[in-house]
C-alpha cells in the first residue's frame, strides 16, 4: 500500500516539477536550442541569406581550416583570454586584497571608481577610447608630446603593430573593476580569525595573500577565471567600435569576423560554421580551464 501511495506522490511531484520547469525549458528550447541547431544545420550549407540554401557538406569546415583570417582572429581571442586572466582576475585579486586588507577606509570610493567603466555601455567606452587614441587630437599622443616623448606618438589603432595591444588595454581596463568587485566581496567573506592567526604566525601581506586569502577564495578564483575566459571568447562590441576588426583584419576576433562574414559578406552558411566552432571552442576551453584549476587546487592542498 505504502509503495503505491508513495509512487503516486512521486508522480504528482514530478508533474508539478515539470509544470514549474516548463517555462524555462520552453524558453531555452526556443531561444537557445533551436537557434543552435539551426546554426549547426546551416553550417553545412552555402547560403547568402536570400536565395535557396545549398547543401555543401564539409566544405565550410574545410575552408575554415585554411582560413588565415579565422585563425588570426582566434589567436586574438586567446590573447584576450590570457590578458584577461592576468590583468583582470590576477590584478583584480591583488587590488581587491589591497582594498580589503590594507586601505579599507578608501575601499568604497575606490570601488566606485573601478566599477564606473563596467556599468557604461561598451559602445560609449569604445568611442571614448577612440578619441584617446586619435593620433592628432587624442589624449595619449597629446600626453606623449607634452612630456617630450614625441617619437612614441603614433596612430595607435591604425598601426598594425599597436592596434591589438591598444584594444587589449581598453578591454582589460574596462573589466578590471568587475573582478575587483567580485574579489572584494569574496575576501570580505573570509573569517577575520584566519587573518589573525596568520598575523600571529608572522605572515606579511605577501605571505597572507598567497597562503591565506587566495586558497580561501579558490572557488571564486575558479568561477571568475571561467567568466573571464568565456567572455573573452565572445567579445565583440569594443573591437567593433574601436577598429571594425581592422586594419586588414589585424584586430578581428571570432565574433567580429563572424559578423563580417554573415552580415557583411552575406555568407550565412560559413558564418554559422564559424559560430558553431566558436561555441564548441568556448565550451572546450571552459572545461579545460575548470579541469586545470581543480588540479591546481588539489596540488595546492
Amino acid at each position, binding site marked *: 500500500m505504502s509503495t503505491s501511495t508513495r509512487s503516486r506522490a512521486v508522480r504528482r511531484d514530478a508533474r508539478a516539477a515539470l509544470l514549474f520547469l516548463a517555462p524555462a525549458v520552453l524558453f531555452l528550447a526556443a531561444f537557445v536550442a533551436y537557434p543552435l541547431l539551426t546554426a549547426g544545420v546551416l553550417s553545412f550549407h552555402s547560403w547568402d541569406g536570400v536565395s535557396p540554401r545549398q547543401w555543401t557538406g564539409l566544405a565550410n569546415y574545410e575552408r575554415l581550416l585554411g582560413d588565415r583570417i579565422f585563425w588570426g582572429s582566434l589567436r586574438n581571442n586567446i590573447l584576450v583570454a590570457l590578458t584577461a586572466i592576468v590583468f583582470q582576475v590576477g590584478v583584480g585579486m591583488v587590488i581587491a586584497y589591497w582594498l580589503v586588507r590594507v586601505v579599507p577606509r578608501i575601499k568604497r570610493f575606490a570601488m566606485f571608481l573601478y566599477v564606473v567603466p563596467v556599468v557604461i555601455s561598451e559602445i560609449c567606452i569604445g568611442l571614448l577610447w577612440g578619441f584617446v587614441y586619435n*593620433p592628432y587630437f587624442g589624449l595619449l599622443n597629446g600626453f606623449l608630446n607634452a612630456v617630450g616623448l614625441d617619437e612614441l606618438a603614433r596612430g595607435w589603432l591604425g598601426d598594425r603593430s599597436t592596434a591589438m595591444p591598444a584594444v587589449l588595454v581598453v578591454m582589460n581596463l574596462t573589466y578590471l573593476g568587475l573582478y575587483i568587485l567580485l574579489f572584494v566581496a569574496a575576501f570580505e567573506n573570509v573569517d577575520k580569525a584566519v587573518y589573525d592567526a596568520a598575523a600571529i604566525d608572522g605572515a606579511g601581506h605577501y605571505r597572507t595573500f598567497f597562503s591565506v586569502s587566495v586558497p580561501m577564495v579558490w572557488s571564486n578564483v575558479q568561477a571568475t577565471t571561467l567568466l573571464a575566459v568565456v*567572455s573573452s571568447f565572445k567579445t565583440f562590441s569594443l573591437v567593433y567600435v574601436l577598429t571594425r576588426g581592422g586594419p586588414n583584419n589585424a584586430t578581428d576576433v571570432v565574433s567580429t569576423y563572424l559578423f563580417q562574414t554573415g552580415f*557583411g559578406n552575406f555568407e550565412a552558411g560559413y558564418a554559422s560554421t564559424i559560430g558553431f566552432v566558436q561555441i564548441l571552442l568556448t565550451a572546450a576551453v571552459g572545461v579545460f580551464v575548470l579541469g586545470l584549476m581543480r588540479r591546481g587546487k588539489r596540488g595546492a592542498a
Partner: protein
Amino acid sequence: MRIRSAWRAALAAGAALVMLSACAGAGGSAGTSGGGGKTLEIWHAYAGQKDKVEFIEYALDTFKKAHPDIKVKEVSAEQSSYKTKLQTAMASGNAPDVFYTLPGGYLKAFVDSGQVLRLDDELAKQGWRDSFLESSLPSVTFGGSTYAVPIDIDAALVWYNKALFDAKGWQVPTTWPEFLDLAEKIKSAGVVPVALGNKDSWPATFWFQYAEMRMHGSGVMSGFGAGDKNATFGPEAKDAAGVLQTLAQKGYLPKGANGMSDAEANILFLNGKAAMVLNGTWQIGMSAEAPAGFELGYFPFPTFVQGRGNQSDVLAGVAASFAVSQKAKDKEAALAFLRHITSPEVMTKYVQIRKTMVARKGATTPEAAGPLLAGVVQDVIGKADTLDPFYDTAMAPKTTETYYSTLQGLIDGSIPPAAAADAIENAAKAGK
C-alpha cells in the same frame, strides 16, 4: 553587512554578464506586412542625419497629402544597420512593400532571388524612364530589366581648403606629378596633405579606383558585373595599388589612417590640419559646420599623362534607389510612391536640402544646388566622358570585403602592390 555586499557583487556580476553577452545577433525585428486595405509599408535608411530626415519627411508628407486613401507605414533605420535589417527581412520572406536599397551588387542579390518587382512596363509609361539621367540606370538594371528607380548620384573629386591654399600660395595641381609635388610641399609645412580616415574602408577605394580609371580606363567593374570573361583590371592595377601605397609611405596620409574614422579625418580637414580630401559630393554637406574662414574648393582628380584611360572621367554612381517587393499587396500604391519620390518637385527639394546631385533630369538646378554643387556639375561631371560607378557597390559583398581589407593592407604596407592587384582581380573574378 557581509551578506549584503555579497548580494551586491552578485547583482553587479549579473548585470555585467548581460552586457558581456552583447554579441553578434544584430538583425532587427522584421516588420509584418500591413493588414487589409491600402496599407503601404515603406522602409528607408534616411535616419540619423538631419538633412536626410528632412528630405524623407517632405517626401512622405506630400505623398500622404496626394494619396489620402493610402495608409503609409514608415520604417526607418540608419544606413549601416539598415543594410542588415533589410537583408534579414528579405531572408525571412518579410520584404516591405517599398524599400530603399543600395544599387549594384546589394540589390542584385534580391533580384536574383526573385523578390524584386520588374519596373520595365511601368517605366515605359509617360516617359518615366527618359526622365532619368542615362548614366544612372545601369546600376539598377540587371539582365536587361530595371528593378529600382535611382534617387541621387554621388561623384568623387578632390576637395581642398581654399583659405589655407591661398595663405600658403599653393597651386591647384592638374597632373599626378604636380599633385605629388604639392603634397610634399604641404607635408613640409607641417600639414597633412590628404585627410583619409579609412577605418570604414571605403574612403581608400576612391584612390585606387581613380588611379585605375586614369591608367587603365573606366567600366572595368561593370564588365565583371555583366559576367564578361575578358573583364580585367589589367596590368595597370599594380600601379593603381602603388599610387595608394605611395601616399601612405611618403607620409601624405594621416598617422594611423586605417584606425581613423571618416568623421575624425573630416575634423582634421575642416580645422586646417589637413589640406585635401578625396571624397564624394557629400563633402559639401560635411563642410557646413566648418569653423569661420573655412572655404571649400574642389578640383578634378589629377591626370596621368601616359594613362590609357580617359583623363576626364569621373568616379560617380547612384548612391541610393527605391524598389518594390514582388510580394507587395498593392503594387499600384507602391508604384505611385516611386513616381512621387522621383517627381521633379520632390527631387528638387532633395537637391536643396542635401546639396547632392539627383538622377532626375533637370532637378539639379543651380538655384537648388547652390554655387559649389552647381560648379561641380558643370566643371567636373559635365566634362566627363563616362561616369564610372563605385567599384565597392558594384562588387559582390564578399569581393567588396577582399577589396576593402586589401586596400587597408596597402596603406599599412603589409601587402605589396602586385599582390594587392592579384587579390582584387581574383576576388572580382570569383564574385558573381
